[in-house]
């Protein structure tokens, strides 16, 4: 009886494990695709064109791997795409900060001119 139970458990794990892995890679793919879509394309293209293109390319590759049931490759490409999305987001923030620096510098220059006039 005990042997029968252990055998049943082992069989269940063998059947369920690939299914869980498939679900995980699909979730990662969907999550990454949503992240890319949430980016402002104009900002992304202006702030980090390489990373943005890389993210889109890896997402395409992930989809292709997913279609071929290559879960491992799908997960890797999704994580690479997600990392590039994160880089794009940080560079968009950086660009905004750099613009702020520039605006303040211009403002200070104007103030100095007015003060010295």
């Amino acid at each position: 009886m005990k042997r029968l139970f252990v055998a049943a458990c082992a069989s269940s794990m063998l059947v369920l494990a690939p299914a869980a892995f498939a679900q995980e890679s699909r979730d990662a793919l969907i999550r990454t695709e949503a992240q890319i879509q949430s980016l402002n394309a104009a900002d992304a293209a202006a702030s980090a064109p390489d990373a943005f293109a890389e993210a889109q390319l890896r997402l395409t590759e992930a989809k292709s791997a997913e279609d071929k049931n290559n879960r491992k490759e799908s997960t890797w490409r999704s994580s690479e795409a997600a990392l590039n999305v994160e880089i794009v987001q940080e560079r968009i923030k950086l660009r905004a900060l750099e613009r702020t620096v520039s605006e303040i510098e211009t403002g200070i220059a104007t103030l100095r001119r007015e003060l010295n006039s």
Partner: protein
Amino acid sequence: MTHFLKSSAGIAALSLFLGACASAPDPSPRLLSAEASLQKAKSDPVTAAAGRTALANATTSLRNARESFLDRKDDEYTHAIRMGEGYVALADARGKQSEANRRIEDLNKQRSEIVLAARSRELNVANAATADAEARATASGRVAADAVADSATSEAARQRAETLLAAMKSELADYEQQKTDLGTTLVLRDLQFASASDVLSQGAQGRLAPLASFLSKQPATRIQILGHTDSQGSETYNVDLSARRAASVGAYLTSTGVDAGRITTSGRGEGVPVATNATAAGRAINRRVEVTILD
């Protein structure tokens, strides 16, 4: 045989060397470049602090990449190197953000200082303008006060002059009066002196009494007394005589209480005739004493 053995040994050694080379390949330029970038990022204090987690992930990924490369696991290597490069780029972006934030903080401080300086300058300008306006107002007030004082002085002078004129009209009506540049001149033609003398007769003193009375009532009034003669006698004598007679009139007035400091006397002799000296009537007109009540 020996040659064969030597050749076999050489081939075996070469095979071993090539095998060793094949089992431990040099890391790819891409991996070396990624590792160099990681070291550079770690050595930058700002990037190291702002991108700590990303750098830790990059370190792990690049270690995996190196192992996969050495194990010739191409897929694993490709994934690991991409992740390693990505994490280094992420750390770099976060480091730059931190720098930009620090710069913004500095610039905001600078801007505040400049605005403060500008306000301080505006305040100084405003204070200077206020002080200037106050000074002008004070000066203006002083001018106004002076004007009021001048006006009061003028009014008082005008009133004094009117009083004096009224008094002259009423009290000195018996004298012949002429208006001159110096004031009002009383012409006394009928003053009697002893012949060739400066001594006033009793009648002459009576004739001067209204003038003495007037002067006692007008203590601020000053007079000038000029003596004149006709042309008889020498000129020097006449000048001296006229001067003495003017002085006699002054002395008389002083004796009635008029302050001597209010009186000046002088003799003109025959030098200023007002009628002909050819006739007795004319000479009588020329012999005179003129008392000018000075304005």
